[in-house]
């Protein structure tokens, strides 16, 4: 599937009806989500044929995109029942049933779900501005699912902190920023004073030890080429 097609399919996915401040429910736009998933699939083939877990799925944007790109099984988790209802409705907009199961659960309680195992974890976690440490809690939960790789969007300002934690505390064998994106946040919360604001975010790829050997130097080279290309063509920079 081409990026354009993916983007078109994802464009009608509804955002939160009433976003909750405490959960930092900022919508992942179709622009950024389709680019993120397209990058993951075209560079690393980590979606098609892979069991994908989406942490903090919200209204299902990343989960739906992963299903469209050929994951045969997506498990999408969120702590907010209202968001999951919207996500479920979003799924039903598609003619063919999508292979997604939503589960209402708390990411902080995920470590006790030892049987839930992913190949690939994708997430757009809270940035941790309202709930301090939420971003790291998500990364920790992602690692506990024993995946081969984790993809996450995080604030660029937290880059060095995340890298250190991933490699030194969470046992990741690699932590790379694949692309810097500009996340255009329209004002959705009452305390927002500007109509929209650009936030710089990193698209991270973390590998966990078992998979480290499999990722060859070729992928890294390809990645650098792609990163350069993506930088020139970002949704928020228009």
């Amino acid at each position: 599937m081409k990026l354009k097609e993916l983007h078109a399919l994802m464009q009608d996915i509804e955002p939160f009806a009433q976003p909750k401040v405490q959960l930092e429910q900022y919508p992942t736009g179709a622009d950024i989500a389709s680019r993120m998933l397209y990058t993951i699939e075209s560079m690393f083939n980590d979606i098609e044929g892979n069991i994908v877990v989406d942490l903090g799925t919200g209204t299902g944007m990343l989960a739906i995109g992963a299903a469209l790109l050929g994951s045969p099984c997506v498990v999408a988790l969120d702590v907010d029942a209202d968001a999951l209802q919207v996500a479920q409705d979003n799924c039903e907009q598609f003619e063919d049933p999508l292979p997604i199961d939503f589960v209402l659960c708390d990411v902080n309680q995920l470590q006790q779900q030892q049987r839930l195992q992913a190949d690939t974890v994708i997430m757009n976690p809270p940035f941790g501005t309202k709930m301090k440490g939420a971003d790291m809690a998500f990364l920790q939960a992602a690692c506990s699912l024993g995946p081969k790789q984790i993809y996450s969007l995080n604030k660029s300002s937290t880059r060095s902190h995340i890298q250190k934690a991933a490699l030194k505390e969470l046992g990741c064998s690699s932590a790379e920023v694949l692309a810097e994106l500009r996340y255009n946040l329209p004002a959705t919360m009452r305390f927002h004073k500007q109509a929209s604001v650009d936030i710089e975010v990193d698209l991270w790829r973390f590998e966990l030890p078992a998979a480290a050997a499999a990722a060859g130097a070729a992928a890294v080279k390809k990645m650098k080429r792609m990163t350069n290309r993506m930088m020139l063509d970002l949704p928020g920079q228009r």
Partner: protein
Amino acid sequence: MKLLTHNFLQCHIKGVKNGYPLNIEAVKIEERDADFDPDFLRSMFKRIDWKAFLVGAQALGCAEGLPQAVSEEQLQDDGFLQKFHHALLEVCLEEGSLICPETGRRFPVVKGIPNMLLNEDEV
């Protein structure tokens, strides 16, 4: 919720030792088509807990033709794989409960979404 997802979930209340597999009380079941992919099914067979899968399949009324133990030959047989595929990926629990085998704690399933949130005293 599909039986594949059921296979991944357990009762995670603090102190519970035998929280798996969750029993299913089905109120409403739906069927949805899924792509038939023999290679994916074979790889999933290695990853799931077959006994737990059978418990779920019994509860959802799709256990017919699924043996207690699966042989190598069966994993190459389209007839078996079709039944496995149907029970694993196409039969969905829409309304009902998942029940912890140790404590009897019920996790409700509403509109296909299991509620695995724990109360404060359960964490």
